[in-house]
């Protein structure tokens, strides 16, 4: 088995004279891994993916799929790939099933009717699969998009904003079948600008901005760490009193925000019980304590210019 399912080296796309929409991007997706590509709108995620699947030509760099170079063995590489690029489009005047049959015919392996039904089952489109695609909702099209991507059992799945248009149940389903596919050894590259999703779905995440990969980390590294500073909000009976108590205490804890009956504090995890005690002692009722589990978001905002602007 090759080292990586997908390897991208120094990928660059220049448009016009000097507009670099993807700038020297490199990352590797391991076998059986779900790798996230996270970035704000216009970061260059779709452009990166378009180069990987050969929709647009790369200005520089290499794409290697299961050890095969895209430039040298394009068709072999494409046999290994299943993809959704931005919103999938279909032949509106045909049924979902007829659309899938089109893609089945283009596969290099024989795709049986059972396989088609199996995939339709997996994406839960059984009831609508024989209706014309023009009657589908956005979410149904997205599911059909997933279906056409996994139909031929690709070993590398590339999904650009796959949750776009899906309802919470749909997102959950997507996550679930991604997990199932991963267990079968399929590797995935998933792009999104939604941090919370990436956190739940991916093993590793690359953060992209202005065409550059600025960070690659394991999700576990990004998740809450005990001594790290977090945002915690307390919903209390009296905001005024709470502020006063905090000001008089020696904890040195900073109030980030105080409105709508809740104070948001920047503090470490360990101090939560202490502050709670402090409030209770001073006759302040505490109705809720919420830790904003936004470490990935924090990281993201810290790393990207969007965050920098917000801080200023």
């Amino acid at each position, binding site marked *: 088995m090759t080292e990586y399912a997908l390897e991208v080296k120094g990928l660059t796309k220049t448009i016009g004279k000097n507009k670099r929409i993807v700038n020297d991007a490199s990352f590797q997706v391991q076998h059986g891994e779900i790798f996230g590509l996270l970035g704000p709108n216009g970061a260059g995620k779709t*452009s990166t993916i*378009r180069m990987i*699947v*050969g*929709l*647009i*030509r790369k200005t520089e760099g290499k794409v290697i799929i299961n050890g095969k170079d895209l430039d040298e063995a*394009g*068709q*072999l590489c*494409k*046999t290994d*790939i299943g*993809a959704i*690029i*931005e*919103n*999938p*489009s*279909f*032949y*509106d*005047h*045909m049924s979902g099933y*007829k659309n899938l049959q*089109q*893609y089945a*015919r*283009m*596969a*290099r392996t024989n795709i049986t009717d059972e396989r088609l039904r199996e995939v339709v089952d997996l994406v839960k489109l059984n009831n609508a699969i024989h209706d014309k695609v023009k009657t589908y909702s956005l979410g149904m099209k997205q599911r059909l998009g997933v279906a*056409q991507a996994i139909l031929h059992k690709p070993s590398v799945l590339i999904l650009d904003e796959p949750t776009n248009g899906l309802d919470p149940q749909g997102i959950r389903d997507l996550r679930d079948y991604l997990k199932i596919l991963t267990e079968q050894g399929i590797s995935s590259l998933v792009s999104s600008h939604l941090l919370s999703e990436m956190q739940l779905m991916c093993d590793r995440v690359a953060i992209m901005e202005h065409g550059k990969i600025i960070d690659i980390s394991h999700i576990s590294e990004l998740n809450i760490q005990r001594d790290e500073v977090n945002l915690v909000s307390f919903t209390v009976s009296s905001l005024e009193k709470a502020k006063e108590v905090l000001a008089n205490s020696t904890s040195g804890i900073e109030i980030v925000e105080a409105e709508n009956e809740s104070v948001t504090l920047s503090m470490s995890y360990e101090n939560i019980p202490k502050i709670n005690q402090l409030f209770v002692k001073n006759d302040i009722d505490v109705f809720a304590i919420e830790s904003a589990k936004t470490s990935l978001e924090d990281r993201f905002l810290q790393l990207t210019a969007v965050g920098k602007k917000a801080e200023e």
Partner: protein
Amino acid sequence: MLSLLKNEWIKLWTKKQPWIFVGLIIVFTLLFTLMYYSFEANTALDSDEWQMQLEQEIEQEREILQSEDASEWEKDFAEMIIEENTAYLEGGINPRQFNNLIYMNDTLLGVASFITLFSVIVASSIVSSEMNTGTIKQLVIRPYERWQFLVSKFITVVLFSIVLIVTLFVTNYILGLILFDTASWNTAMIERSFEGAMVETTAANLIFSKIGLYTLNMLVFVVISFSLSTLFRSQALAVGVGIFALFATTMSQALNFLLADTAWYKFVIIPHLSLTEYVVHDTIIEGVTLPFSLAVLAVYVIILLGLATVYFQKKDIAY
């Protein structure tokens, strides 16, 4: 590759449009035939009378030739009629007789312009519509070369236009059998052009060379609109240019007359877009014969398809 072709064929016929086009060809053929039947069939003459009538006409025209107040134009016309009638008499062909093949020869190309129009519309949309809806991206990420998609689409359009031609031919033939007497394919026939040029040949020869040349001609229009719509991603533009070219051919007679002396005109595509002229003419401009026209068209076709293929092979698909 065969599966790509199958896909294209299915995609085409699951739309309503091609069925409507086939239906329209049938309807137009019917209408055209009815018109022809009601006007022309009245002038039919009995088998005994026709020779007499032709001879009478020749006599009348001779008188015109001899009379002194007849104009130059009238005399030319009289000469033409005499020449024609003599040819009919010598060939033993009754020009006022009706049979299914004469009907076919007269009407077959009557609605053929619609075939070109419909083929041009399909050719212009088969690539550009997939670019506009974005379905193209789900095609080119499959394990095929891009040119293979283009080739299968092109073949599909060509097959579609052949379906239209066959529809026309079959409808026309059946109507002929119903409405007229059945004649042998070997029946002698005379074909005249506007200027009076004449050829005498068999029905089969005449009808099949007409439809063959027409088909070749139509394929050139298909190539033009297919290539342009691929290059410019615009169906409207491609249909527009296709229709413009179609009109240009109706004016080509005039252009041929005006520009025949220039050295470059015979290398322009326009005079070669009326190939059916070759049914009655050996040359359409001096020195321009059928092989020459075909060679010129082949060069244009190769350039257009080549450009479209190279462009499509390389272009960034970002929509």
